C-alpha cells in the first residue's frame, strides 16, 4: 500500500509568486494515497531536505512526490534525501511546476494553479506504482580516447596522460597541430603560434602514455560510459612510417611537385603528392595523397616512381591498405575543431571573382613567415605591392542568411592582423577596418584594441553592400560610415573577409557515430550552457574547443583541461553504478521477432534462440527507448516509465 508524501517547493517567487501554493497543498493532501503534504520556500536546501526526511519518519511514507523544478536540475538531490531517510531512491517522482508551469504562465496565475494541480495529480498517480530499483556495478576501462589533435585535443590528451592514464589520440590529418598550427601570431600577446604550440606537439609525440593515431578517423563507437568499444579507421599513407625518417627527398623529386594545392596553406601554396603538411609536423613522416599520386591513380609514374627510387630506406609502399584498429576506452573527449564559412557563399563580396579577396585564415598563411610567401604580403593576382588593405568584419556572421552567431574571434584577429601588417610593412600602408561593433571581451583584449585604435589604421563603422573588381583588377567598394555619416568609396589592393567559424562539414556524421547532439547552429551541444559546458548528453563523452562553439585559444585550452578532468573523473574509478532505469523485455509478451536487437544502438539486446525471446544486457542498456518504440508486441517496457503508468497519468487529467 502506497503512503505518499507530496512536497511543494516555492522556489522563492519562481513558483510561489505565480502558483497558489497553499491551495496546492490543500489539493494534494486530498488525493488518494497521499498521507501528508507540505510546502517549503526552498525544498532543495538543507532545511528543505530535513522537512522531507522528518515527514518520511513521522508519517511512515514510502513514495515521495516533489513538486518543484525540472528533474534535470534536482532529481539527484531529492533522490539522495529520500535515500538518507531509508527509502529506495527510485521511489521519487517529480512534478516540474517551475519550467512547465509557473515560468511559462506567469501572467495567468489562476490557470497556472489549475495546471499545477494537474501536474501534481499526475505525479501522485504515477508514484503509487513506482518500483524500487537497484543499480548494478560495472567495471570501468581506465583508458581514454581523444578525437582531434588540435590545441584542444593535445591539451586534453596531455592532461590525462600526465596522471598516468593511457590516452589514444586520433587525428585525421597526417600531422597533429590543427588550426593553431596554421596561425601566425596570437592576440593579444602576439606570441608566435607555432612557438607555443610545437613544444606541446613534441610532448605528445614523446609521451609514453599517449598513443598517437594520425591519418585516422573514428568509424564506430559502441558500448557506454566506462566501457566504449571504438573502431578507428587508419587510412593508408603508402609510406611505411616505421622506416620513414622524414628526410623529405621524396617530395623533392615527386613528379607532382608544386602542382598540388596545399590545404595547410589554405590553397595559397603548392605541394607534392607525397608530403608533410608543414615542416614542424608531428609525426614528421611522409604521406602520399592518393587523389594526386600518379602511381596510385594510374599505376604508372614515368619509367619508375622517383620517390621510390630516391628513398634509400625503402619506405614507399603502394600496396598499403586501410586498417581498422579496435580500442576499448572508458571515456571520450571530442575536440574536432571547426571549418570556416565558405566565403564564396557571399556572392556580393566577390570572393570567387578575385584572388585578392581572401579570408582571414588565408591571410594568416600569407603573413606567416613559414607561409607560401615567407610572410611577404603582396597582391595574389599579379604579385604587385600592396598599398591598401581592407578588413571586412562580420562577413557572414551575425547574419541570418549565413551564421546568426558572433564568431567571437573576428574582431580581435583582425586587430592583430592590422598590428602585424603595420609592423611588417611600415607607416605608408593604408589599413581599413570595416567593423560593426568591436568585441574585445577577453583579458587584455580592450587594451590591445586601444593600441591599434591609437595607431594609423582607419576604423570605418559600417559594412559594404558589395565589393567590385575593376578592369585593372583593383578592388573597390562603397561603405557608409555611420560615425562620420559619409558614404566612402574605398579602393584596396587586398581585401580580407573575416568569416565566422562553422562546424566541421562532417560533424553531423560524427555526432551520429558518437550519439551526441548538435545544437541549432550545428556545433556539438553541451549538456548545460552554463554548468556543464564540456558534458554532452551522452554519459562519458565530453567536448572541448571549437567543435562546441567558436572560441579563442585561452577558452579552448581551459575547456580542454575541463573536459580532461571530467573524463578523468570516470576513468579513474574502479566501478560505475549503472542506471537501473532501463528497458526490459516481458518474456510472456515477447515473440522473439528480433526487431529490438536490430534497433538497439548499444548492442544491449540479444536473442535467446532456445527460449525464443529477447534478452537485455542491463549493463549496456541506457534506457534510450528505441526498443520500446519499435517492439510490435508491446513486450519492451521501460522501468518506472511503463505504458500503463503513462496512460494512468493521462487519465488523471482528461
Amino acid at each position, binding site marked *: 500500500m502506497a503512503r505518499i508524501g507530496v512536497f511543494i517547493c516555492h522556489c522563492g517567487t519562481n513558483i510561489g509568486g505565480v502558483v497558489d501554493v497553499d491551495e496546492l497543498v490543500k489539493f494534494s493532501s486530498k488525493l488518494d494515497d497521499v498521507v501528508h503534504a507540505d510546502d517549503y520556500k526552498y525544498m532543495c536546501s538543507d532545511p528543505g531536505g530535513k522537512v522531507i526526511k522528518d515527514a518520511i519518519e513521522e508519517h511512515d511514507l514510502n513514495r515521495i512526490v516533489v513538486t518543484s523544478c525540472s528533474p534535470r536540475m534536482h532529481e539527484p538531490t531529492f533522490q539522495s534525501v529520500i535515500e538518507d531517510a531509508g527509502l529506495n531512491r527510485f521511489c521519487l517522482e517529480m512534478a516540474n511546476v517551475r519550467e512547465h508551469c509557473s515560468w511559462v504562465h506567469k501572467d495567468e496565475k489562476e490557470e497556472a494553479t489549475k495546471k499545477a494541480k494537474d501536474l501534481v495529480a499526475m505525479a501522485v498517480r504515477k508514484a503509487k506504482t513506482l518500483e524500487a530499483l537497484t543499480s548494478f556495478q560495472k567495471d570501468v576501462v581506465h583508458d581514454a580516447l581523444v578525437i582531434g589533435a588540435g590545441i584542444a585535443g593535445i591539451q586534453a590528451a596531455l592532461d590525462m596522460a600526465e596522471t598516468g592514464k593511457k590516452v589514444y589520440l586520433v587525428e585525421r590529418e597526417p600531422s597533429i597541430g590543427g588550426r593553431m598550427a596554421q596561425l601566425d601570431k596570437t592576440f593579444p600577446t602576439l606570441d608566435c603560434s607555432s612557438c607555443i604550440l610545437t613544444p606541446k606537439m613534441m610532448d605528445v609525440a614523446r609521451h609514453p602514455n599517449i598513443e598517437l593515431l594520425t591519418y585516422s578517423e573514428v568509424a564506430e563507437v559502441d558500448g557506454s560510459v566506462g566501457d566504449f568499444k571504438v573502431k578507428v579507421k587508419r587510412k593508408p599513407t603508402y609510406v611505411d612510417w616505421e622506416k620513414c625518417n622524414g628526410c623529405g627527398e621524396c617530395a623533392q623529386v615527386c613528379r607532382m611537385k608544386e602542382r598540388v594545392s596545399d590545404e595547410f596553406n589554405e590553397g595559397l601554396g603548392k605541394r607534392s603528392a607525397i608530403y608533410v603538411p608543414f615542416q614542424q609536423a608531428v609525426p614528421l613522416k611522409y604521406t602520399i595523397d592518393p587523389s594526386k599520386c600518379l602511381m596510385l591513380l594510374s599505376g604508372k609514374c614515368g619509367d619508375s616512381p622517383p620517390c621510390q627510387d630516391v628513398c634509400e630506406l625503402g619506405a614507399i609502399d603502394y600496396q598499403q591498405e586501410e586498417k581498422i584498429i579496435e580500442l576499448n576506452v572508458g571515456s571520450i573527449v571530442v575536440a574536432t575543431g571547426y571549418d570556416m564559412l565558405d566565403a564564396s557563399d557571399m556572392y556580393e563580396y566577390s570572393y570567387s*571573382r578575385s584572388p585578392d579577396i581572401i579570408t582571414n585564415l588565408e591571410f594568416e598563411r600569407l603573413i606567416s613567415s613559414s607561409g607560401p610567401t615567407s610572410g611577404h604580403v603582396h597582391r595574389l593576382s599579379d604579385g604587385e605591392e600592396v598599398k591598401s588593405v581592407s578588413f571586412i568584419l562580420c562577413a557572414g556572421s551575425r547574419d541570418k542568411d549565413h551564421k546568426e552567431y558572433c564568431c567571437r574571434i573576428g574582431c580581435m584577429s583582425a586587430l592583430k592582423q592590422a598590428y602585424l601588417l603595420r609592423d611588417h610593412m611600415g607607416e605608408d600602408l593604408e589599413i581599413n577596418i570595416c567593423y560593426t561593433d568591436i568585441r574585445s571581451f577577453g583579458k587584455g583584449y580592450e587594451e590591445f584594441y586601444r593600441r591599434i585604435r591609437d595607431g594609423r589604421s582607419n576604423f570605418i563603422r559600417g559594412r559594404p553592400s*558589395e565589393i567590385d573588381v575593376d578592369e585593372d583588377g583593383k578592388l573597390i567598394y562603397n561603405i557608409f560610415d555611420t560615425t562620420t555619416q559619409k558614404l566612402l568609396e574605398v579602393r584596396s589592393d587586398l581585401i580580407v573577409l573575416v568569416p565566422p567559424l562553422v562546424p566541421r562539414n562532417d560533424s553531423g556524421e560524427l555526432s551520429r557515430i558518437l550519439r551526441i547532439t548538435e545544437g541549432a547552429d550545428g556545433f556539438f551541444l553541451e549538456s548545460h550552457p552554463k554548468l556543464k559546458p564540456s558534458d554532452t548528453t551522452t554519459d562519458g563523452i565530453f567536448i572541448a574547443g571549437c567543435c562546441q562553439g567558436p572560441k579563442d585559444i585561452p577558452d579552448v585550452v581551459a575547456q580542454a583541461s575541463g573536459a580532461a578532468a571530467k573524463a578523468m573523473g570516470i576513468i579513474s574509478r574502479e566501478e560505475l553504478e549503472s542506471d537501473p532505469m532501463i528497458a526490459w523485455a516481458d518474456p510472456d509478451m515477447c515473440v522473439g521477432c528480433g526487431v529490438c536487437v536490430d534497433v538497439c544502438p548499444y548492442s544491449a539486446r540479444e536473442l535467446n534462440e532456445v527460449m525464443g525471446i529477447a534478452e537485455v544486457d542491463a549493463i549496456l542498456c541506457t534506457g534510450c527507448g528505441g526498443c520500446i518504440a519499435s517492439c510490435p508486441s508491446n513486450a519492451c517496457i521501460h522501468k518506472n516509465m511503463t505504458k500503463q503508468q503513462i496512460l494512468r497519468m493521462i487519465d488523471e487529467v482528461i
Partner: protein
Amino acid sequence: MDLDKIGLYLGCLIPTEQYAYELALREVLPEFGLELVDIEGPACCGAPLRHINLSLTMYLSARNIALFEKEGLDILAPCPYCHQALSEAKDIMKKNPALKEKVNTYLKEEGLEYRGTNEHFHLLDLLHDEIGIEKIKESIKEPLEGLNIAAHYGCHLIRPNDIPRPDHSEDPQKLETLLKAIGAKSEYYNEKLDCCGAHIFINDQESALTKTGQKLEAVQKHGFDGMTTMCPWGQRMFDAKQDSAGQTVGASLSLPVIYYIQLLGLAMGKEQEKLGLHLNKSPVDKLGSKEED
C-alpha cells in the same frame, strides 16, 4: 513543356508604350507551340501603388490572378515589376489564409474568387525552364556569333529572395545561358545587378537618368556590343531615354539595347519589323554590322 497555351498579362507599360516587347512576344512564342491568350478585364498589377497603400497592390494582384484563374489559365507576366507583385500577393495569401478570405469578399463584388491554383511565369523562367534551352537552340537559324551582350535582369525579377523568383538573387545566370543558347556571349560586369533608375523617373528625372547613364556608361566602357533586358522599365530607360541619360551624366552613349525576345527572334531569322526593332531608339542596327565582322 506541358504548356500549350498561357494567359498573357502585360500590365501597364508594355501595352501602352513598350510595343516592341509585345510585338516580339507575339511573334516569337507561338513558334514554340505556345498560344498566347488575351482575356478581358485585367488592370494594373498594383505595384506602382505600393507607395500610397500596400493593400491596393495586394488587392489588384490578387484580382488579376483570379481573372486568369477563372479562365483556367496560367499566366505569362513579361514585366518583372508585375511578376513580382503577383508572386508577392500569392505568397502573402498562402501564409495568411484569413487575409485571403478578406480579399475574396472584395473580389466577390466583381464576381471573382482567388484560389491560387494557377501558376505565373516571367519570360525568363518560361524560356529557360519551361520551353528549355534545347528547344531554343533547335530554333536558331542565324546564331548571333561574335556578340558580347550585357545581361540586365531588372531588380524585381530576382529580388527579394524571400518570395519565389525566377532566378538567384545574387548570382542569376539564366539570362546568360539564354544568350549563349542563341550564340552570343555574356561577360560578367560589376553593375549587373544595379538599378536602371526607372522607379524615380516619375518624381526625380535627373536622379533617374543619372542611374541610367551610369550603368550604360559602365556597360559601354566594359566593351559590350549591346545590352539585353527582359523588363519594359529597364528597356524604357536604357533604350528610349539613352540620349537624355547620356546628357545627364555627360557621356556620349551609343549602346544598342534590345529585348532578349527580340534577339531570340533575330536569331530565329524573323523579320526585324515584326520584332518591332524599328521601335528601339538605341542604335540596334550596330548589332547586325558587328555580327558580320
